[in-house]
């Protein structure tokens, strides 16, 4: 799971709609990829980002990045490089994601988050 993917994610439960993000990250294994910086790509990605999600990651992985959006400048290449590297090169291999609303824990194994609800979670309200 790359950080850009994490930035789009939320809890799958209907009860958490609008409240299930950013997912809290636990990480026991990560890798750093070496994707080249792409100015155009990063500039276009920027307005789509959820900065509460970036803050969560910045804190978790102790990566310094300007979180105050009023101080951001798309002319600042250093800032965009840091952002690109954070979004596209950091990949969580093993760990978990926790919903800030319902506390449901989703495991991440071999780089793949498992966001599947169990049958009893889906049908918990239906009395057979």
């Amino acid at each position, binding site marked *: 799971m790359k950080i850009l993917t994490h930035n*789009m994610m*939320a809890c799958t439960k209907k009860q958490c709609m609008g409240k299930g993000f950013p997912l809290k990250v636990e990480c026991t294994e990560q890798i750093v990829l070496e994707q080249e910086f792409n100015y*155009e790509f990063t500039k276009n990605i920027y307005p789509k980002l959820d900065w509460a999600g970036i803050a969560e990651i910045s804190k978790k992985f102790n990566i310094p990045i300007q979180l105050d959006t009023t101080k951001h400048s798309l002319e600042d290449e250093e800032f965009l490089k840091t952002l690109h590297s954070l979004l596209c090169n950091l990949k969580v291999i093993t760990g978990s994601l926790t919903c800030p609303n319902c506390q449901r824990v989703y495991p991440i194994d071999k780089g793949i*988050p498992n966001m*599947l609800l169990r049958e009893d979670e889906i049908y918990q309200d239906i009395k057979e």
Partner: protein
Amino acid sequence: MTDSNIDIDKLNLNESFKEEKLNENDNDDDDDNNTISRNKSKKELKKLQKQQYKQQKKQDKKNNKVNKIINEGVPDISEEKINFEEPKTDREAYQVEVKHVREIYDRIALHFDSTRYKAWPIVEKFLEKVSIGSIGVDVGCGNGKYLGLNKNSHLIGSDICNNFTSICNEKHYESLVADNLYLPYKSNSFDYAISIAVIHHFSTFDRRTEALREIIRVLKSGATLLITSWATTQKWKGKNYDYQDVMVPWLFQNQFDMTKKNDEKQDKHISSNNKNNENENKNEDENENENGDEKIIEKSGSQYEVYHRYYHLFENGEFEKMVAQIPECEIIENNLDHDNYYCLIKKK
């Protein structure tokens, strides 16, 4: 005199012609020994040729079956109408899909991956057009054949089948395990979405509509979804379905078994095949054996298993009916291509 001679000759000619005609029909009871032996050998030759032709045809048919499946993943085994009753409750539908879609794909994922590498031009064109720095979702990404097509876009693949996401991860694509009905994404977030040959695996109209509604939910206003499904008119495969809910066979080669450590299952297959070899059908190189839900076929030393996947084949107007239930979206384009409906749906 000359006239009568001619007449006799004519008569003889006619008779010999008659004889030859009879011989050809293999019905003559001529007393002439030569004729009998000649006819007999002719008969035998014909019989032999007929047999060879039949065998060849049978062999071709078998080869065709296997090749078609291995090369294109298009099953050519005649579809079986397995008694399919529309599930009465949503939970029943869920269970049908787990058993007849999710578990089957989990089993055949690796084999499926070896057959699905060609991108469908319509999807390719759609992905080429997305802008640099756009973020998209591929809902039901399978082996991820569309995930790496446009390097300028961040496309996240998801599939309910665990083994498919593992295959995607090995190809260094972003993928996660998720249910189309419960997508793990924020609402109004994505610039585009694709759903290729996925929606037909849901077993009720309500679930298909909910699956579509869920994809629309995660799209931004103005974003487009490309969604495709199999159609009832499968003419290019030489078929025309007269029912919509079908079980489509997959001839699975054991070499693609992702659970090779499962010795017990392997042993079971081998023993059932050995049992088969003791049968009278020794000359047959293909033995079929029913074993619960799955069929085992041995062909030229390789083992195959037949698995059936559930499909709801789409009729004309079905996407329209679904979209009519979702006021947030509208159809931009809806067409038939190679017996697949493809539909461009825009979020308002």
